[in-house]
């Protein structure tokens, strides 16, 4: 059945070299990276810090230009950023001068959507991220977790083909992070968007994904691509089940080698 459907996103032998200068050598951040994502998949990319996973996401978003290789969305080659790929950044990416509802409809203003319909969309996504009552608040009045919920709503309100998240819960405390993971999974189960999620947290990568892609560090390459066969919906208690722990052990081992390698290199 999967053979029938066409891939949503294809990353084909993408390489990224950051040009150095007199004092610094060129850095090969990504080396011949290939990844195919099918519609409605939730992919997490797991890797140690500095492995180029964010670079890969930024290339997909069009915010960074690859040195070689191509990226296709629904078979169309991508050049530069566009609203068909929604992005959620690590933190502080909300427009501080706009209220919660104004932030959410920021992307809608460039589209041919009437005010009434826009209001309806905003209401729907505020409800989805459970921020009823905070419509008129400014970002600085919200906690970090609430801000990230607005960022997710803002990206989704634009109805992108794929949702890209760059360690969106990395700056949050543990309890908030867990709640946000549950919320994001719930949203995905409802909307079935294609999602590409970057993280360095093993547990997070398993809990959210139906495929975990492990990356090597320097140069970034895809080391393993592991399907997660856990049923949906996934309660948070799934994190202590034997099946989950088995994945955790396997991935921890894989990522540990890379982290050690990365640590040595920085020295």
């Amino acid at each position, binding site marked *: 059945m999967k053979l029938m459907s066409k891939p949503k996103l294809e990353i084909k032998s993408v390489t990224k070299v950051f040009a150095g200068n007199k004092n610094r050598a060129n850095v090969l951040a990504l080396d011949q990276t290939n990844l195919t994502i099918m519609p409605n998949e939730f992919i997490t990319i797991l890797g140690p810090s500095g492995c180029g996973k964010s670079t890969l996401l930024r290339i997909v978003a069009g915010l960074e230009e690859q040195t070689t290789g191509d990226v296709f969305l629904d078979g169309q080659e991508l050049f530069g950023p566009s609203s068909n790929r929604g992005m959620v*950044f690590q933190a502080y990416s909300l427009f501080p*001068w706009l209220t919660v509802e104004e932030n959410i409809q*920021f992307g809608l203003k460039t589209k041919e959507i009437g005010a009434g319909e826009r209001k309806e969309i905003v209401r729907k996504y505020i409800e989805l991220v459970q921020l009823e009552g905070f419509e008129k608040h400014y*970002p600085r*009045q919200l906690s970090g977790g609430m801000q990230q919920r607005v960022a997710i709503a*803002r990206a989704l309100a634009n109805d992108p083909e794929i949702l890209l998240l760059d360690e969106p819960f990395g700056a949050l405390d543990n309890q908030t992070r867990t709640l946000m993971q549950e919320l994001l999974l719930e949203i995905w189960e409802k909307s079935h968007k294609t999602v590409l999620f970057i993280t360095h947290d093993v547990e997070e990568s398993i809990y959210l994904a139906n495929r975990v892609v492990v990356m090597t560090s320097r140069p970034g390459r895809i080391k393993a691509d592991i399907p997660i066969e856990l049923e949906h919906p996934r309660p948070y208690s799934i994190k202590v089940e034997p099946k989950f722990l088995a994945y955790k052990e396997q991935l921890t081992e894989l990522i540990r080698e890379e982290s050690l390698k990365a640590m040595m290199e920085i020295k």
Partner: protein
Amino acid sequence: MEKAAKTEEIVNHPAILSKQKLGSGTRKSRNWLQPQAAIPHRLYVGISISSIVLLFAVWSLLTYTGMVDPLFLPTPVEIVHSGITLFTEYGFINDIGITIYRVLAGFLIAVVIGLPLGILMGTFKVVEAFFEPMISAIRYMPASAFIPLFILWIGVGELEKITIIFVGSFFSLVLMVAVEVGNVRRELLEAAYTLGRSKLGVLRSVILPASLPGIMEILRLILGWAWSYIIVAELVASASGIGSLILESQRMLKTGNIIFGIATIGVLGLLSDIILKICIKKAFPWHYGR
């Protein structure tokens, strides 16, 4: 906030509480001298008021006892008298008006030209590369040093005064605005791109609103500088304005008028600053306060 909570926890700890009781006699004074520690609001205001009272007390002591020649420093009451005669007999209000007019004219022209230029320099490296060297160099040439040149070029009329204010404000304004605009967080621009905004669209929808509070603060600062430039301009060659009154009073040994003139400029500068400050806070609720 977190820090405060922790302090509270520590303070309420029974072991520490008992210790505090033992040394309670010295506790308050120790708090005053603790670096960066807060003091009670009433104490703060009290100290502030006493400094002003002290100033007047020393002033009165020096003048009323005759320790200082009234020619150098008149008594506070005499200065108030000079002020009243200035308004009633010498039409001081016209001098104030003409000085305000010159400051605002020069400042507003600098803003009208400098603001767009600064925004473009902060946004586009091409524009920055073209204007930066020239503006940076002129910025360090003091506006007051240009006065003889301007008198030579355009005479001693209003245009010369306004030009001095313009030169004094414009170059710093452009560079400071350019830096402010250049500091807009990259994430905000990137977020706007992924939400479908074009490269030029972000200028209006992100760069301008994000840097506006900072720009207004810069304008406030520069207006403050303009007040000191106008007096220099009026001291050198002018028949009207607060600066020329100060100079004339010096020639006639009217020390009271000089001091009253200086105080007037201070009050005007302070007033314009406070008005702008309040307007800025009101205009950007998302940036200041809740």
